[in-house]
C-alpha cells in the first residue's frame, strides 16, 4: 500500500472519530505519526461540522406540510372519481354497443318460449289425423330420449304406448281415421320390454 493511500485511510478513520464527537487534539494524539498532515485537514472538517447549517423557516415547513396534505387529499378524491369514471364509461360503452342487440335477443327468446308453450298445450289434446299429432309424438319421443335412468325410461315408453293406443281408439271412434290405418300404426309402435306387470298382455290386447 502506498504512503498516500495509507494516509487516505488514516484520514478517513480520523474523520470518523471527529464525527463521533472526539476533540481534534485527542484524535491527533491517536494518529501521532500523521498528526502534522492530519491537523489542517481535521481543522477544515471541524469548521464544516461546526458551521451553523441552514434551518428551514417554520412557515416553510408548515406550508410544505399543508401542500403535501392537500395533494394527498386530492389524490384520494381523484382516485375514487377516476374509478367511477371508468365504471361509467364501461357501462355506457356496453350499453351503446350491446344494449339494443341484448334487448332484441331477450324479446326473441321470450316470444319463442311463449309460442312453444302454447303450441305444446294445443298438441296435448290432438288425435291421430290432426296436423298437430306428429308434433305431440315428437314431444313424447323427445321426453323418452332425454330420460337417462333405464327403469324410468321403460316406464315412460309404456305410458306413452298406452296413451297412443287411447288416442287411436278415440280417433277411430270419432271416425278421424280408418280402423285399418289404426291397426297398421299399432303394429309399427315400439314393443315394450316384457315386465312382471305386462308379460301376459300385449299392447294389442287393449
Amino acid at each position, binding site marked *: 500500500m502506498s504512503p498516500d493511500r495509507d*494516509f*487516505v*485511510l488514516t*484520514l*478517513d478513520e480520523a*474523520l470518523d472519530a471527529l*464525527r463521533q464527537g472526539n476533540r481534534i487534539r485527542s484524535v491527533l494524539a491517536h494518529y501521532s505519526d500523521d498528526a502534522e498532515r492530519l491537523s*489542517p*485537514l481535521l*481543522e*477544515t*472538517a471541524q*469548521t*464544516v*461540522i461546526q*458551521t*451553523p*447549517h*441552514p*434551518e*428551514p*423557516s417554520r412557515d*416553510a*415547513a408548515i*406550508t*410544505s*406540510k399543508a*401542500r*403535501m*396534505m392537500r*395533494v*394527498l*387529499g386530492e*389524490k*384520494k378524491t381523484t382516485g375514487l372519481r377516476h374509478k367511477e369514471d371508468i365504471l361509467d364509461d364501461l357501462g355506457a360503452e356496453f350499453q351503446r354497443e350491446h344494449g339494443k342487440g341484448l334487448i332484441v335477443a331477450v324479446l326473441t327468446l321470450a316470444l319463442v318460449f311463449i309460442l312453444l308453450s302454447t303450441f305444446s298445450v294445443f298438441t296435448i289434446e290432438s288425435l291421430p289425423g290432426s296436423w298437430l299429432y306428429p308434433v305431440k309424438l315428437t314431444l313424447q319421443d323427445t321426453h323418452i330420449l332425454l330420460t337417462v335412468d333405464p327403469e324410468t325410461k321403460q316406464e315412460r315408453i309404456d305410458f306413452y304406448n298406452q296413451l297412443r293406443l287411447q288416442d287411436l281408439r278415440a280417433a277411430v271412434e270419432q271416425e278421424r281415421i280408418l280402423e285399418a290405418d289404426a291397426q297398421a300404426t299399432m303394429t309399427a309402435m315400439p314393443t315394450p320390454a316384457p315386465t312382471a306387470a305386462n308379460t301376459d298382455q300385449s299392447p294389442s290386447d287393449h
Partner: protein
Amino acid sequence: MNEEGKIIQRAQKGDALAFARLQETYYPDIYRFFYYRIMDAKNAEDLASALFISMIERIGFYKLESVPFLSWLYSLARTVLMEELLRRGWSYDQAPQKQVYWSPDDLPSDRDNPQANTYILKRALARLSTDEREVVIGKLVENRTNRAIGREIGRTASTVKQIQHQALIKLRSALREERYLES
C-alpha cells in the same frame, strides 16, 4: 419492527397522519440537502416541498429493511433536483456557482453573524467539483457513510475516501481565501 417502520407502513397504505409525521421528521434534513446543492434558501424550500409531494407517489416502492428511510429520501431528492435543473437548463456543476454568485439574497456584512459563516462556507463549497462537494456535504453535514455517498455519485467507497482527501485540501484553501480560516 421499530416505530418508524410502522409509520412508513401506515403511509404506504395512504394514512395522512403518517405522511405528516414523516414530513415533520425529515423536512429539515431534506431542506439542507437542497440548500447545499442549489445554494439558495427559497429554492431549497420549494424543492423540499416538491420532494414530499413526490414521496406520496413513490413511497409504495420503498422496502423496509433495504436502506434507511432518510437514504431513500436522499435518492428521491436527487431525482427531484435533477428534474429541476433540467427544467432550468442548468447542469449539476453549474447550480451552486449560479446561485452563490448570481443571487444577491444574503450578502453578509457581519462576520460574527452565524448566517455569514454559512454564506462563506457555501461560497467555499461552490468552488469544489461536484463529486468533492457531494463527499464533503455527505460526510460532514449529512453524516452519511462512504458507501452511501459512493452509491449516490457512482463511485466505490475507496474512491470516496480519496475524493474526501482532495476535497479537504481544496476546501481549506478556499476557506483561507475567504479568510474564514487562519493562514
